[in-house]
């Protein structure tokens, strides 16, 4: 694979350490001017000024083979807020979300350029362990995917991988995580029954509990409600409001009303470009770009 001066390979093999070193240099010079808040961020899309940044995306380009899926994306995701990505299918919003915990590393033929900083550290630095990263940046998917195990085992799975063995500690983590996912009351009497016996909405909240069990700092949600009924959807939306007190939430959704209801900030993507990133209230009442306006009013296409 060809690597340009600014590009960062998706996974750096030992044979390419020289490249990796020069890359690290690039990364470090970029970090001499650390970004703490929106106000000193160099990005053009920085709608809030007094909120500390959790994730800073700079000059990001992303390719599936020769197809460019994201173009020059710059954005600053603030801590303890819900940020929504909206846009028509194929606009790159899910691709960007998957870049935030390096899930695209697992896709062959992909290439990423630019930097993504999590707490001022580039997550694409070669020494960053992708598994550790994914512990800090958890993810919940559109396709509801509980393990074919018990409710308890689903939630305890992550902590057990982290070598937590004591039953009392695990019990505690399971209870806390289920409570934070708003599921405890419904499953406390069936912790050792199969997770597959739960309803769809319960299974999705179980997936959220499983993600919360390893105490992530960021939770990524990719269309988490698209397979759920309105009541389950409402539960998850309410959940996001409480979750953001402890962590940073980024959600991709096709449902614009959902983005309007749950998010503090909204980014609108079109053909791989971030068209507008602003306060959700502004995006849905008085957007700055006519393309955003066309999309949120349903005139698009």
């Amino acid at each position, binding site marked *: 694979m060809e690597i340009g001066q600014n590009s960062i390979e998706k996974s750096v093999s030992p044979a390419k350490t020289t490249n990796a070193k020069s890359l690290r240099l690039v990364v470090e010079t970029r970090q001499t001017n650390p970004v703490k808040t929106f106000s000193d961020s160099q990005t053009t899309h920085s709608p809030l000024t007094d909120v500390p940044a959790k994730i800073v995306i700079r000059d990001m380009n992303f390719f599936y083979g020769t197809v460019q899926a994201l173009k020059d994306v710059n954005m600053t995701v603030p801590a303890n807020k819900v940020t929504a990505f909206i846009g028509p299918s194929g606009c790159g919003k899910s691709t960007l979300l998957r870049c935030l915990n390096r899930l695209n590393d697992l896709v062959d033929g992909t290439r990423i350029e630019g930097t993504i900083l999590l707490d001022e550290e580039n997550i694409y630095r070669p020494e960053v362990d992708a598994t550790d990263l994914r512990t800090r940046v958890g993810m919940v998917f559109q396709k509801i995917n509980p393990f074919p195990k018990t409710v308890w085992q689903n939630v305890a799975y992550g902590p057990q991988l982290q070598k937590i063995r004591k039953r009392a500690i695990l019990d505690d983590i399971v209870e806390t995580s289920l409570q934070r996912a708003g599921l405890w009351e419904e499953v406390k009497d069936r912790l050792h029954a199969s997770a597959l016996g739960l309803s769809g909405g319960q299974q999705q909240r179980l997936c959220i509990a499983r993600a919360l069990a390893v105490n992530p700092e960021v939770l990524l949600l990719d269309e988490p409600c698209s397979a759920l009924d309105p009541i389950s959807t409402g539960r998850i939306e309410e959940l996001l409001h409480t979750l953001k007190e402890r962590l940073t939430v980024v959600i991709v959704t096709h449902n614009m009303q959902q983005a*309007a209801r749950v998010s503090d900030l909204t980014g609108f993507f079109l053909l791989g470009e971030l068209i507008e990133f602003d306060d959700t209230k502004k995006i849905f009442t008085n957007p700055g770009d006519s393309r955003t306006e066309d999309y949120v009013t349903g005139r698009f*296409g």
Partner: protein
Amino acid sequence: MKRHFDDELADLKQRILRMGAVVERQIRQALIALVDRDDLVANQVIQNDRQVNTMDVEIDELCLELLALHQPAARDLRFVTTAMKISTELERMSDLAENICERAIELNAEPQLKPYIDIPLMAERGIKMVSESLDAFVRGDSVLARQVLNEDDYIDDLNEQIFRELLSFMIENPQTISRAIRLSFISKYIERIADHATNVAELVVYMVEGKIIRHTIPT
């Protein structure tokens, strides 16, 4: 993409226009009732206010329906909420036209106090503001809307001048007091109509630019 929703928005716009036309006529007729001392016309205006009230309720219901069923955003949302408020403003104008007619009927029962010159002049300017603010709404023209805002001072000055003139009548001859007070009410009603036209113009600026300029001191 052609949206079914656009037809409903066009329908809403038409209803506001029709209501605006009726309200403009109400104000004109009220002035005729006063100047021509015609009780028949006055009573017609009072009757017609019911029609305006019905239109207001219908527009309100349509707007609520559009909000509930289509959950409009951005430009569409501003259009629907603005239409809802404009309908209230128009309804108030019609109420004031009705009030003018009530005072006119009372005045017509006595000999005319003086030739009516300034009041029709003021009303003419007020009606112009109403029709321009509605034009601005239909065309989405915030420049025109801002022009309407500037005209309000002229009306306020005229109202003040009429009041002083009537005051001098009352001081000279207490016999004129009841008529003079009624005329000064009418002058005040017209001034209020112009204020409502100003509100419509401010709403149009919000609809077009997304900026709320109400309750701000003009720069």
